């Protein structure tokens, strides 16, 4: 039987969004092994990026994920800008943070209400929820309106919701006009209040009693809640520059998955990235409004129950709306849209906080700016080992359940992580092998 303890270091990415499956292996009704299989066909980004112009990285890597393209664009441009020694202007920096706020909102709201909430309420999906009861229809409507407000930010700054077109190495193609952004404010302020109500709603759900002393890993920035930069820190005292990521984390290939799994090099341990990690490590950097809301709904750190990530996502949505309003109110399109730059040879690293966690890119260019190598470590490959550990922990409790109940419960564990298997929604095919 294949072992997940194989230590193979892989310097390249395999696709993770897509379809997965899980196998629980039992021997005499004792759990022997748990495998989360990701069988999305590989698309070989890191292979075909070789030889491409570094300027193409934001457009090409966006296509890795239709749900968090901004995250891929942000990690890509920051890494290339490090090589080209580009210092972006404060205006560009604020616009990138604003764009990221929009993506956090649309992605988190999609997950909280369309992917996650049906698990707690016992429906196949949000459309079925909306049909079942008028009050749930209202809830879904509010969620859609809030999601749309997030998408309106991505559209205004990036040009379109999926695979934005305005992001480039050195800044943007065009700075949005003052009126293009200010027009968003009424809906953003409405949404900020609405999210406070959605947070209250989240306290009406029943969360399974499940806590783990996770090793949380996230960025930390001296001035703000992390999105576009910072140092990589962990709940066990790690504190490193992003460039040191490959020294501390390794991606390994396991036989059962087309995705690579990341672990800490020091002890081979799994770790946890995403909203729960960000919140636990960075809550003191959140605005007062968000910290007060957290206290009111019982989400003051430490939060170690992964099911409660639903509420934490909503806290981050509240934070993103608050930031977006602040950034837009202060916005003046100043300075050039793009910082002029010349290609040069070098190595660049960047990590940003995708909605579902740390996203690391590393590129090496030649003196014409063509890529020699590309390494992309997405959040889901980092969480995969932790998801398997969670599954192993609950596996024994699944045994007495029916196939359907056991499948649902195991799926819910996986969905807690909002894996960037976009159809992670309800993707799990569980096979119980009894020998």
């Amino acid at each position: 039987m294949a072992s997940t303890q194989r230590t193979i270091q892989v310097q390249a990415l395999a696709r993770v969004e897509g379809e997965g499956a899980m196998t629980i292996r039992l021997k005499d009704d004792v759990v022997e092994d748990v495998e989360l299989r990701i069988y999305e066909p590989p698309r070989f980004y890191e292979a075909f990026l070789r030889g491409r112009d570094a300027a193409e990285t934001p457009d090409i890597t966006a296509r890795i994920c239709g749900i968090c393209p901004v995250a891929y664009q942000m990690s890509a441009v920051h890494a290339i800008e490090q090589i080209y020694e580009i210092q972006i202007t404060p205006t560009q920096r604020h616009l990138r943070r604003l764009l990221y706020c929009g993506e956090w909102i649309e992605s988190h709201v999609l997950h909280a209400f369309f992917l996650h909430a049906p698990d707690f309420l016992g429906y196949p999906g949000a459309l079925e929820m909306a049909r079942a009861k008028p009050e749930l229809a209202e809830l879904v409507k509010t969620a859609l309106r809030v999601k749309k407000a997030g998408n309106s930010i991505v559209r205004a700054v990036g040009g379109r919701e999926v695979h934005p077109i305005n992001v480039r190495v050195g800044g943007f193609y065009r700075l949005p006009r003052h009126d293009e952004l200010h027009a968003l404010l009424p809906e953003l302020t409405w949404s900020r209040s609405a999210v406070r109500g959605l947070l209250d709603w989240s306290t009406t759900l029943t969360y399974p009693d499940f806590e783990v002393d996770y090793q949380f890993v996230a960025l930390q920035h001296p001035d703000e809640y992390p999105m576009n930069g910072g140092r990589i820190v962990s709940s066990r005292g790690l504190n490193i520059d992003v460039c040191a990521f490959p020294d501390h984390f390794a991606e390994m290939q396991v036989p059962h998955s087309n995705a690579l799994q990341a672990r800490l090099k020091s002890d081979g341990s799994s770790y946890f990235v995403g909203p729960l990690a960000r919140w636990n490590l960075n809550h003191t950097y959140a605005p007062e409004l968000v910290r007060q809301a957290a206290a009111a709904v019982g989400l003051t750190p430490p939060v170690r129950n992964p099911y409660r990530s639903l509420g934490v996502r909503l806290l981050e949505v509240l934070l993103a709306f608050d930031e977006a309003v602040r950034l837009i109110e202060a916005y003046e399109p100043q300075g050039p849209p793009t910082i002029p730059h010349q290609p040069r040879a070098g190595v660049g690293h960047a990590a940003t906080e995708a909605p579902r966690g740390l996203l690391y890119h590393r590129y090496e260019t030649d003196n014409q700016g063509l890529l020699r190598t590309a390494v992309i470590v997405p959040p889901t490959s980092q969480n995969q080992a932790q998801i398997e550990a969670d599954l192993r922990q609950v596996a024994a409790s699944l045994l007495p359940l029916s196939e359907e109940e056991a499948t649902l419960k195991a799926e819910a564990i996986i969905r807690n992580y909002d894996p960037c298997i976009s159809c992670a929604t309800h993707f799990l095919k569980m096979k119980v092998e009894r020998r």
Partner: protein
Amino acid sequence: MPPRLGVFKFASCDGCQLSLLDCEDELLGLAAQVEVAYFLEATRQPLVGEFDVALVEGSISAPEQLEQIHDVRQRSRFLVAIGACATAGGIQALRNGADVNDFLRLVYARPEYIQTLATSTPLAAHVQVDFELRGCPIDKRQLVDTIVSLLAGRRPRTPNHAVCLECKRAGHVCVMVAHGTPCLGPVTHAGCGALCPGYDRGCYGCFGPAASPNVTSLSQRLSATGFAAEAQVRLLSTFNVAAPAFASGRVALPVATPA
């Protein structure tokens, strides 16, 4: 009985099916008129029965997908390919000219664990496709129009002219004429609303080739403005790399080895 809608995925980023969930204003109204009977991104409903309309995202790039696409075809009365992966093979078709084993070895330490096909191909290479929605990603207004047309019993229509016409209609200044910015607008299929020129950027071909594009003529113009042949090859080698008109346009370019 309301019509049954199915949403299916092959090799892709999920962005095109997400476009349906991004129709925030239309989604609940749509769900009241059709039965969203299969849509893994949105519901746990199992795959059963037949579909009046199938929206299919993604390219065929793994062995098991060869059978799955035929199964989807057999279940579906009207099959719509959505997005560049489904209509042209997507960016993952960049492997088509290369040795896929080299790609496997670059990405995976143990390539023998991985099952993949040597090529990434559009749905139409395997089954009959009733309608194609272009784009990387598709345009959600075109998606809604398509579904509404089908509900009304009309064949959907989308313009197949070049982005240039949309650009003129939107009143944008031509980025190529005014600023010398390389732009694929003259040869690219309409549908995005000439988004990029509105952001002072040249079109980069998300929607693939327009009807009867003259890629060679555009190449001559780009070369005359000093845009290197290698860079032109790259510009034509993205999400619609395997679309025939872009492929033949590349072959005509004077470069030693394909990028």
